[in-house]
C-alpha cells in the first residue's frame, strides 16, 4: 500500500488507478476509498506549494538544456554541426545530459525514433539545418508512426535569414510541414522554454508525431538571457481521457449480441500501454484478433486467438457481424469486406483525424485505449452474468483455436520442407533466432513483403519478445540506427536488428559507427538474398516485357557481392558470413556471447530469393570503364 500511496502523491497513479490497484492488493472498495479520501488534501497541498517555473539566466543554449532536463530528457541524439555549439557548452556543465552522436542526420532521427518506440517517451534530437533534408526520410517514417519526437536544428542568424543566403533557403520551415505536427522558429531567446515545452507537449500528446524547432545561432549564443524554466510536470497533457460512458455501454451490448465479432488492433494499443487489457478483453469474449503488420506487434502473435492481418476477404471468421477497431489506422478500408459487406464498425482511440477514413462507422470510443478497454471490460461484466460470458467466450475461443492450430500446422510444414536448403530459407533462420534469443528480446526489424517468413516464426507481442519496426512509412534506411536507440532505452534486454541486404544498402552501413562508438551490444542479422526481392516480384507481375524476356531491370544486388561482415569489421565490429544452415546456431551463440561481453556482432546470412525471377541474377550492365577511349 505504501508504494501505491507514494505513486498517487507523485501523480503517477490516477484516482481510478489507485482504487483499482488497492482492490487488486486485496483491500475492500470502502477501505480503498477511505484511504484515498485522506490522501486528497495531501495531494492538493503538494500542488499548492509546487514551483511551476524557475527563473534562470544564461545563454540560449543553456536555456534549451535547462528546459530539456525539466522535460525528462536524458539523451540528446545529435549530428555534427557548428550550430550545436551553444548547446554543447551547456551540456558540458550538465552531466545528466548525454550526447549520442551519429554520422548522418537520418540516423539521428532513427535513433531517437527507436528510443521513443521502446520507452513511449519523447526523443530529442538536434543537428545542422543543412542536414535536415537528409533527415526527412526518417522524419516521414516517424510521422507515419505517430512517434513523439522533438527535432531541433540551428538556423542562420536572425539578422541574415530568409535571403537564400549561406546554408539557408527563403523558407526553411515549409519543407518540413508534411513531416511534422508542429514547427516553429524560436527567434526570441527568452521564449525558448515556452517553445520547447510546446514542442514536447504537441509531440507527446496522442496521436503523437514529430515537432520541429529552428534555433537561430545568434539566439542560441546570446549571453545572460533571462527566462523562466517550466518545471517538470507542468507542461504535460496526458491523453488518459475516458471515452463516453454511453458509447462504452452501447459497444458492450453490441459485442454481447454479435454472433461473429472481430477485433482489429493497432500500434496505439501499445502506445497506450493497453496490451494486457486488450488480451483480457479478447479472452473474455473469445474474440478473434487481427493486426496488420505495423511498427509494433501489439497482440501476441502466437496466441490462439490471433489470426494475422485483416484480409479483404476473411477465411475465418466468415460472416463477421461486428468489427471493433482499437487504435489501428485503416486507410485501405474501402477495399475491405468490412466496407463492402457493411459490417458495423466501432472505432476507438485518439486519432480522431483519421478514425473512420474510408470506413463508415457505427460509433466511436474517443479516448485513451487503456481506459477504453478497461471500461469496456467493466461494462461487459456489469451487463452479462459470468456464466453468459463464459458461454460466449469459451465456445468462440475453442473454435478460433482449432482454426489457428491448423494454420500454424501448415506454416510449420512449409518451414520443414526446405529445412536444410542452401541458400538458407528465411523460415529456418527465423526458427534458429527464436530458439537462441531471450524470451524478452527486442526485435528491431526492417524487411519487405517477406517479413512474415521471419516474424510469423518468432514469438512476438505482449508476454513474449517485442517487435519494433518496420516503419509504417516504409522509407528504408532506418533499422540499424533505430536499434541503437532501442538498446539505449533498454540496455538490459537483448536487442536484435533484423535487416534485409537491400534495406541495409539504403545508407545504413554508416550506422555501424555510432553502434561501435557508443558500444551498443546489438546482434545484427542480415537476411542477404542479394536482391530487392519485393520489387522484382511486384514488377514482373505487372510488367510483361521484363517477365517474358526474363530481365531483372532494377533488383539484382549480387554484383558487387557485398561482404557485410567485412564492412562491420571496418568499424571494429566483429562479423561473419554464413551460407550453411548448420552453421547458424553456433554463430548465434558466438553473437550472443559477444553481446554479453559488451560488443556488437554482425551475421551476414545468405538466404534464398523467392517469387518470380528468383535467382535469375541478370541485370542491365553499364560499364563506364568500357566506355573509355583513353585509359585514364
Amino acid at each position: 500500500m505504501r508504494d501505491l500511496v507514494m505513486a498517487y502523491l507523485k501523480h503517477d497513479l490516477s484516482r481510478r488507478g489507485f482504487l483499482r490497484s488497492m482492490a487488486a492488493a486485496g483491500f475492500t472498495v470502502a477501505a480503498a476509498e477511505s484511504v484515498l479520501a485522506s490522501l486528497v488534501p495531501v495531494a492538493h497541498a503538494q500542488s499548492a506549494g509546487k514551483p511551476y517555473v524557475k527563473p534562470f539566466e544564461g545563454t540560449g543554449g543553456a536555456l534549451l538544456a535547462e528546459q530539456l532536463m525539466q522535460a525528462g530528457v536524458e539523451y540528446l541524439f545529435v549530428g555534427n554541426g557548428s550550430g550545436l555549439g551553444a548547446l554543447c557548452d551547456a551540456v558540458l556543465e550538465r552531466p545528466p545530459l548525454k550526447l549520442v552522436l551519429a554520422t548522418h542526420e537520418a540516423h539521428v532521427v532513427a535513433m531517437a525514433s527507436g528510443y521513443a518506440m521502446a520507452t513511449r517517451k519523447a526523443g530529442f534530437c538536434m543537428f545542422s539545418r543543412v542536414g535536415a533534408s537528409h533527415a526527412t526520410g526518417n522524419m516521414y517514417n516517424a510521422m507515419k508512426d505517430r512517434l513523439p519526437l522533438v527535432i531541433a536544428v540551428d538556423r542562420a542568424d536572425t539578422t541574415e535569414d530568409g535571403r537564400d543566403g549561406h546554408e539557408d533557403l527563403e523558407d526553411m520551415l515549409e519543407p518540413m510541414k508534411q513531416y511534422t505536427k508542429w514547427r516553429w522558429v524560436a527567434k526570441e531567446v527568452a521564449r525558448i522554454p515556452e517553445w520547447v515545452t510546446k514542442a514536447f507537449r504537441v509531440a507527446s500528446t496522442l496521436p503523437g508525431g514529430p515537432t520541429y524547432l529552428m534555433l537561430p545561432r545568434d539566439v542560441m549564443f546570446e549571453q545572460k538571457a533571462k527566462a523562466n524554466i517550466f518545471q517538470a510536470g507542468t507542461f504535460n497533457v496526458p491523453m488518459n481521457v475516458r471515452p463516453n460512458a454511453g458509447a462504452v455501454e452501447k459497444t458492450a451490448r453490441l459485442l454481447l449480441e454479435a454472433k461473429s465479432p472481430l477485433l482489429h488492433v493497432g500500434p496505439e494499443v501499445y502506445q497506450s500501454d493497453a496490451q494486457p487489457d486488450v488480451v483480457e478483453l479478447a479472452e473474455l469474449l473469445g474474440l478473434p484478433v487481427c493486426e496488420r503488420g505495423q511498427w509494433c506487434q501489439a497482440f501476441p502473435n502466437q496466441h490462439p486467438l490471433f489470426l494475422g492481418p485483416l484480409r479483404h476477404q476473411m477465411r475465418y471468421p466468415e460472416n463477421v457481424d461486428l468489427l471493433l477497431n482499437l487504435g489501428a489506422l485503416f486507410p485501405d478500408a474501402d477495399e475491405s469486406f468490412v466496407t463492402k459487406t457493411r459490417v458495423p464498425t466501432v472505432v476507438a482511440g485518439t486519432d480522431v483525424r483519421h478514425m473512420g477514413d474510408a470506413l463508415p462507422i457505427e460509433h466511436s470510443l474517443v479516448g485513451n485505449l487503456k481506459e477504453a478497454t478497461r471500461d469496456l471490460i467493466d461494462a461487459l461484466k456489469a451487463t452479462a452474468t459470468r456464466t453468459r460470458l463464459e458461454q460466449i467466450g469459451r465456445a468462440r475461443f475453442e473454435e478460433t483455436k482449432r482454426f489457428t492450430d491448423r494454420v500454424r500446422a501448415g506454416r510449420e510444414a512449409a518451414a520443414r520442407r526446405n529445412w536444410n536448403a542452401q541458400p538458407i530459407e528465411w523460415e529456418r533462420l527465423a526458427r534458429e533466432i527464436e530458439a537462441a534469443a531471450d524470451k524478452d528480446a527486442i526485435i528491431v526489424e526492417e524487411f519487405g513483403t517477406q517479413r512474415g517468413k521471419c516474424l510469423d516464426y518468432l514469438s512476438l507481442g505482449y508476454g513474449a519478445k517485442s517487435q519494433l519496426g518496420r516503419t509504417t512509412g516504409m522509407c528504408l534506411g532506418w533499422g540499424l540506427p533505430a536499434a541503437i536507440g532501442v538498446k539505449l532505452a533498454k540496455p538490459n534486454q537483448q536487442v536484435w536488428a533484423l535487416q534485409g541486404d537491400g534495406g541495409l544498402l539504403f545508407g545504413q552501413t554508416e550506422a555501424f559507427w555510432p553502434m561501435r562508438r557508443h558500444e551498443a551490444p546489438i546482434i545484427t542479422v542480415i537476411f542477404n538474398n542479394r536482391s530487392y526481392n519485393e520489387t522484382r516480384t511486384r514488377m514482373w507481375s505487372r510488367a510483361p516485357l521484363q517477365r517474358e524476356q526474363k530481365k531483372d531491370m532494377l533488383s539484382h544486388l549480387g554484383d558487387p557481392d557485398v561482404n557485410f561482415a567485412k564492412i562491420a569489421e571496418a568499424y571494429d565490429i566483429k562479423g561473419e558470413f554464413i551460407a550453411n544452415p548448420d552453421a547458424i546456431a553456433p554463430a548465434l551463440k558466438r553473437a550472443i556471447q559477444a553481446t554479453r561481453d559488451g560488443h556488437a556482432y554482425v551475421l551476414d546470412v545468405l538466404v534464398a530469393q523467392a517469387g518470380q525471377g528468383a535467382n535469375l541474377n541478370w541485370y542491365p550492365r553499364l560499364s563506364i570503364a568500357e566506355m573509355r577511349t583513353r585509359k585514364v
Partner: protein
Amino acid sequence: MRALATVLVLVAVAARPSHAWPENHWGSQLPAGDGRELTVKLCSRCHNLEKTVVARKSPKEWERSVYDMISRGAQIFPDEAEQIVQYLSAHFRP
C-alpha cells in the same frame, strides 16, 4: 444521331483500361479443373490473381511458390496446398 451516341458509349466501355476491371477479373481467367475453386478462393484472399494467371512455372516452382505464400501468412492448410499445387502445375506450366 442517337445510334451513333450509343455506339460511342459502347466503344468507350469496351476500351476501359485494365485497371478499371473488377478485382475478380483475374480469377475468371483460371481454366476449369480440379482445384480451381480452392485456388481462386484461398489465393485471392490476399492478392488478386494477375500474378498467378501470367506466371508459367514447373511443378517444383509452383510447390515452392505455394508454400512460400503459406510461410508469408496465407491461411492454407497442408492438404489444400497440395491440391492448389497440382492445379497450378497442370494449367500454368512453361
